[in-house]
């Protein structure tokens, strides 16, 4: 902590507290960022273990390892844990670490709420996971929990599920409010809105999406709670309710939610491509406008998840056209990344490898998304493995690769040590091959007609399912290497310079490595 510069106006200045209280009571954005990142990694491993169970059961036709009842619990928890426990907290962790440093602020605007928003999360997931040991088993209705399967026909643990979703929602809303308040109020003088780093922009937009839709999710689960325990019939047709209403509410949350999981990735990848191409981002303002239009469009496309529920023709056509429109700003982003690389001076360190893989594989996921938007074709794709392949392409080599890229990119700043480049590249190639071997064949399986959420399948799907399982095991076990690399970097390694990367630009690279416990207690000077 020798690098702390401000000492004249800070009588009882302190570094981190000692022992466990440092983590329990911390209000420091860097500590909380670290907590979020480790927590999300733990959830990533738990959710991943569930994916391994799923792929092991699907390795061959027939029921071998688990019963269909337990299989359904696995797919449900895998989805919930990866989304709410893996990807979202990881992005919040990155926001905590980076947003204050990138805008030259000393900390997040609401540090105590920051502590609270993290520390309620472990309880939410403890409740959710404990449902595995309850009578009747864990929630088994898929992460989309369509009523009435999740109400009248749900196991008793559904009430615990509802409670844990409420807590996750509260945590996300607090985190999002904190980000908005920080960005709006605490930018160093000279950091105008259109001068903010793209990661900050992406998080500002994400935070607004979170504030807009997490309450909708809370509303949906509260209505479920009422239906289950208080005799209402929101979603019960026998009582005059409407099961399709549930899906409208859920996807009104759910579609912005999927952009919540990808917008911060856009920010991260833009930084990394810029740095390792040693060239200014091709179109900063068009990137900002593209993110804004994607965010706004995300509110008017929700029913493309529901093309088969029997919507009227006009609604199908509206949602098809609106959904296809999203391809335009998404295309703008991809073209911008490619144009940034063009005639740059490129090197391929691990973060860049992950970022390039992100652009390629996310584009594949985006293109299959475009195919899914075509209603008549969606009648054939809907709820098959084609959809599974699509959203895993945008979530795994999309969101998760961007998080890994971010960790490799910023970990020298966090720990002061360089990661092992050789191991990092090995981790990249294992993950890259694993992801593609897992999810590419799922396009085939889906088009050939295998529905999703099936614990067992007809024989014509056997070969590619086996390939997919092999890929999944490869990908899954490669992540232990990631854990090893991160631990090794935390423990020691080649010392990082302040700028770390030759092409890196931005305020976070102007502070020492590792970043001091308190940064920018006096605002930096921006030219």
């Amino acid at each position, binding site marked *: 902590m020798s690098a702390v510069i401000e000492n004249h106006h800070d009588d009882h200045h302190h570094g981190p507290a000692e022992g466990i209280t440092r983590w329990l009571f911390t209000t420091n954005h860097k500590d909380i960022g670290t907590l979020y990142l480790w927590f999300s990694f733990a959830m990533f491993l738990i959710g991943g273990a569930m994916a391994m169970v799923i792929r092991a059961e699907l390795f061959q036709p027939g029921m071998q390892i688990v019963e269909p009842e337990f299989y359904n619990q696995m797919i449900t928890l895998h989805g919930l844990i990866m989304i709410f426990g893996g990807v979202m907290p990881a992005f919040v962790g990155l926001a905590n670490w980076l947003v204050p440093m990138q805008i030259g602020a000393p900390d997040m605007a609401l540090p105590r709420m920051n502590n609270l928003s993290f520390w309620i999360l472990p309880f939410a997931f403890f409740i959710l996971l404990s449902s595995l040991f309850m009578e009747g088993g864990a929630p088994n209705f*898929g992460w989309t929990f369509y009523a009435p399967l999740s109400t009248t026909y749900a196991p008793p643990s559904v009430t615990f599920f509802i409670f844990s979703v409420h807590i996750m929602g509260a945590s996300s809303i607090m985190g999002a409010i904190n980000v908005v308040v920080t960005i709006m109020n605490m930018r160093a003088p000279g950091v105008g809105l259109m001068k903010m780093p793209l990661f900050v922009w992406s998080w500002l937009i994400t935070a607004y999406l979170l504030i807009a839709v997490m309450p909708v999710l809370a509303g949906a689960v509260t209505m479920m709670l009422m239906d289950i325990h208080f005799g209402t019939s929101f979603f019960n047709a026998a009582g005059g309710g409407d099961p399709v209403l549930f899906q409208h509410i859920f996807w009104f949350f759910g579609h912005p939610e999927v952009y919540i999981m990808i917008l911060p990735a856009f920010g991260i990848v833009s930084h990394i491509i810029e740095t390792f191409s040693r060239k200014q981002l091709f179109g900063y303002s068009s990137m900002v406008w593209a993110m804004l239009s994607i965010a706004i469009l995300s509110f008017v496309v929700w029913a493309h998840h529901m093309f088969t529920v029997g919507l009227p023709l006009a609604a199908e056509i509206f949602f098809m056209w609106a959904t296809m429109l999203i391809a335009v700003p998404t295309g703008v982003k991809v073209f911008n990344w490619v144009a940034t690389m063009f005639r740059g*001076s490129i090197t391929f360190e691990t973060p860049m490898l992950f970022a390039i893989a992100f652009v390629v594989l996310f584009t594949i996921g985006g*293109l299959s998304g475009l195919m899914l938007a075509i209603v008549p074709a969606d009648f054939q794709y809907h709820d098959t493995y084609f959809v599974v392949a699509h959203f895993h392409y945008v979530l795994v080599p999309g969101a998760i690769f961007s998080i890994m890229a971010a960790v490799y990119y910023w970990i020298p700043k966090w720990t002061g040590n360089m990661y092992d480049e050789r191991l990092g590249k090995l981790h990249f190639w294992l993950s890259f091959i694993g992801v593609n071997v897992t999810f590419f064949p799922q396009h085939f399986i889906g088009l050939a007609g295998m529905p999703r959420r099936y614990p067992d399948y*007809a*024989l014509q799907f056997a*070969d590619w399912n086996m390939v997919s399982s092999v890929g999944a095991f490869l990908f899954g076990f490669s992540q232990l290497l990631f854990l090893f690399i991160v631990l090794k970097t935390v423990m020691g390694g080649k010392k990082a310079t302040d700028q770390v990367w030759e092409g890196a630009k931005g305020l976070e690279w102007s502070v020492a490595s590792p970043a001091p416990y308190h940064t920018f207690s006096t605002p930096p000077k921006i030219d």
Partner: protein
Amino acid sequence: MFFKFLKNLSKSLTLLFMFLAAPSLRADWFALNMTRGTTEISNEVFELHMLIFWICVVIGLLVFSVMFYSMWAHTKKKNPIPAKFHENHKLEIAWTIIPFLILIAMAVPASKTLVKIYDDEAGDINIQVTGYQWKWQYRYLEDDVSFFANLSTDLDEIYNLVPKGENYLQEVDEMVVIPVGKKVRFLITANDVIHSWWMPAFAIKQDAIPGFVNTAWTVVDKPGIYRGKCTELCGKNHGFMPIVVKVVEQDEYDEWVFNKREEAIKLAELTTKDWSTAELMERGQTVYEVNCVACHQTEGQGIAGIFPALAGSEIALYEKDRHIEILMEGVQGAAMNSFDYLSEVELAAVITYSRQAWGNAEAGDGEIVIPKDIVDYKEPKI
């Protein structure tokens, strides 16, 4: 000319592949794409799928080739000094407008096909399809024919005790039969949770939702057996409620309808017959294994916390009237639905079975239920 050549080439390549794949009977390595449908609409959907697929492939290849070229030509070694350019309005407008136009080119034919699919007129034959956990019921509205279709794959095949048959998980005990060339309309709904009725060969996928009736139609010109599946997670046996449609010539269809009606009449006669306990037990076991075993399990032990046990249950031991009532009305707020769609004989048999089996006869009053009891239960309400 060139296209014709390509077509021929692809044909001969396909043949070659088929030949190579011949040794393995289930040539699944080549199950890579959507299968072309059998109806006009499903063919149109297939063409649409291929059109957008190739457009996506071309877009992807264009973008990636520029990117890979940069990765090859613009490395730090080959290009140590990066260019300085950024922002170019003409280029940016172009890469906004051109994708927009491509999208319209895709959306227009898609919308046209969709309009064709959304045809609301009544069919020549109207079949009500109802999803149940975990089976499908088919009611021919004009012909007074009604039956359930259950998975017919043996449990031993599922649990790997015997080799799996050719139509593993794609076979049912009773196929939906429709005639060629007639417009058949499906009215799709559900009794408990949401299911989804998918028949890929007809490009029909419609959610079966309790309280809603969705419709879909088809005209099939080629006789044959077509297989489909449930595509909305509906509980533990979601993967085990397939759909099989048999398309036959008109006269064969008429004969089938005739036989089904005869069968129904015979079944009705059974209601007035005198039943012995043994006969009821035998029939009841069959009904139990089709309708009840998924939740209440083979030994009537249920699943703790979700599905109550029948073995040793107070109702199955002593409360005959309540037992009948539960089967007829279901249990409010629980997964137990009304089974009033079963015949009087089936209901009497299955209630008798669950009052007699698993030691219930010895433990309780051992009273049996005969079809007339069910008729009596129904009567005062009419």
